[in-house]
């Protein structure tokens, strides 16, 4: 039921030029870590995985996360570590992005394996993309998952395309 409500919200958002925020995915499109790799199960107990969450919060380390939540077929190309970081610290990333810098922004660039010399330029591009997202009044109505996925997809596309030469984990 929640998915149906989200899909409606996303359709509205997409209709008014919020292209980064989508929740549907196929095996050939960019995978959605929240849906395709179980990241959503960790942070949305109302979808029936509450029993796993207490252990997940304890054991959310690098190997624990990737081994527990990667699905080879559906998650090819997904940067789970980046998605988990974005999901966890999203309010901080919002604040760092609008300021153009900050601790969370720098850490995210490190997760993507970006050269320190390119961080400022990448954050400038991220800020441009985020400006489009947050300027849309529908942004406030989006769920946490939708905002986080939109941000993740924007940054992943940036580091994979425009900054592929300076980032190793896109």
């Amino acid at each position, binding site marked *: 039921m929640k998915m149906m409500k989200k899909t409606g919200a996303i359709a509205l958002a997409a209709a008014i030029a919020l292209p980064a925020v989508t929740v549907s995915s196929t095996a050939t499109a960019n995978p959605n870590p929240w849906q395709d790799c179980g990241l959503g199960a960790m942070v949305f107990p109302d979808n029936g995985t*509450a*029993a796993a969450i*207490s252990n997940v*919060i*304890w*054991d*959310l*380390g*690098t*190997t*624990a996360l990737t081994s527990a939540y990667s699905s080879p077929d559906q998650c090819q190309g997904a940067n789970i570590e980046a998605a988990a*970081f974005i999901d*966890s*610290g999203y*309010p901080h990333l*919002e*604040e760092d992005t*609008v*300021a*153009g810098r900050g*601790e*969370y922004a*720098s*850490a995210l660039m*490190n*997760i993507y394996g970006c050269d320190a010399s390119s961080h400022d330029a990448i954050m400038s591009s991220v*800020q441009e993309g*985020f*400006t489009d997202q*947050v*300027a849309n*009044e529908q*942004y*406030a*109505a989006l*769920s*946490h998952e939708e905002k986080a996925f939109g941000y993740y997809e924007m940054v992943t596309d940036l580091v994979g395309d425009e900054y592929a030469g300076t980032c190793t984990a896109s």
Partner: protein
Amino acid sequence: MSISGLSNIPRPAFFYVLIKTLVLATLFNQNLLADGRASAFSPPELASSQHWQRLLHYEDGRSEVVSSAFFLADNGDTDPYAELLATLDAFAQPLDEFQPDEHPVCRFPARYRWLQSQGANMRSFDSVIVGCPEFQHWSDNGNLNSASVVFATGYLGNPASYYGHLLLKFSSAEVSSVSDLLATSVNFGARIPDQENPVTYIFRGLFGGYTSTFSHAYYYENRELYGDEQLRDLWGYELNLNEDEVAFLASHVWELIGQEFDYYFTLENCAYRVARILELITEEPIINERSPWAVPITVFQALADQSYGDDPLVREIELFPSRQRRFYEKYADLNQSERSATRALLDNDFMLTDSEPYQGLSDIEKTRVVMALLDYLEYLRISEDGAETDSAASEYRRRLLVERLNLGDQDVSWSPVREQPPHLGNPPSILGFGYMGTAEESYLTLRGRATSHDMLSLPAGRVPYSALTMLDLELRFDGEMVSLNYFEPLRIETLGISETGLPGDRSHAWRIRAVVEPALPGCSNCTTGKLQGGLGRGVRLGNLGAFYGFSDLHLQYPEEHGGVIGGSASVGFVTQSDAFWAARIETGGHVTFDDIEQVEPFIRVQQRFGNRPGWDIRVDAEHRVDSQVNVRFNYYW
């Protein structure tokens, strides 16, 4: 030096063990120390050593690790020599016979390091650990150079968190150069089943029934959990260790991840377990072995007191403030115009372009206001149980984010007034002696309190304007007989002070108390048991202190001086400082429901003299029908 267990082995097996000892001693015997002198590698001596037994977490002849996977010998949990032999045996196996991460050195890197340092003739650690990619990744490929113990301050929202919590954090130079968000953190806690009922939770937590374990995560997960979701400050105490020492400590923590211990809330808790790990490298004990309880703050007090060689054991103390504190610090740093603009925006639903006070600010002032309000909205969202609450608040946040983008690059600085680190507060337990005088009698008193702090305790490291005490007992001696003056198993009190006065930044003052004490001050033979609970409000008066008011309900049995049920209403004032003198005064009226028209006025004055963590002098006076004065010298430990 005796070899544990050897004399109890049946004869055929005895010869097997003896031969094995000789073979392994020969295989692992390193005859040359770095300076060329000869040295004998002696497994029997090493097995009896304190260091080996600490690696196995032995206490009173048995390991406190209860999971069998931690041991390589069948009886490794009771026979450190058998475990040593099994470990040497395991390490002697060729690496190429194992899949990556499967060789025993991958599970026990600290044992390998230590045995090698004791003279075992083994390949270099760096050459064998290449077969352990998972450990290498976790330990940042041997680049860890910093180890910290992190204190999450107490949290009155959950009784299990009243006394704070401990974490370990490991970091490399590369990670630290950006921030510690991607540092490796290790947590410890009990495994609580889902939907555990509160009675079972309390009983098993106190008396046993849960196992506990270490787990690991990126540090940002714990910063989010404690600093944001629970609004607790995180104080990082970085240890003054070199890279080899950090590597060894991290290696041993790796060995413990996922292994299980018995859990007891008062003693075998996070403070105890982390202290036991740190005692592998410290020169002195961290937890007093004779203490019947382990309180997290005592670990930090011990760390701050200790030396490591010629230097302090603690290199640096760093605060990561909670979302709440970050908001408070920003708001306190706003100038008058900025505060006026902040309130104006709250009043006009964040219509920034329509707000004259806001539009009259400079761009830097606007940026400061926006940053403070972003923290404020997030603090409200979290303190209201973290719900993605009303759409209005989400829209307000969106407007602030857009405004911040429009303001561009601004060179904003803040000047927070930082609290003192928590180890500078009073230790949790008290031993005190004093004098008590009433209209009729004089007494000598002797007092002991298990934990933790009262309203006049030094403020470092505790929730402001709060009290949390457990097991407070005082005896009195009139020259002939010793009798009970009072026994207070529990007192919890918080004034719910708002730092800002802004909407949503306020909570009720509340208190609960269980006590056995005289029904009236100065009464020598009217001891009664009481349960008391109250609700009220507190208001801060700048840096001077706080006013408060309470309405309380009392239950007492037996009926001494009045009925079973009574109530009171009171007002009071308390100072909050680390100055030499602090005081609290409370006055009001008490009634019993049997005779509700008979109001008994009362007044209590409490004073603290001295602001050293280790001691103070308290002078208390109380009057309700009769009067009583107490003078106590308190020693904190």
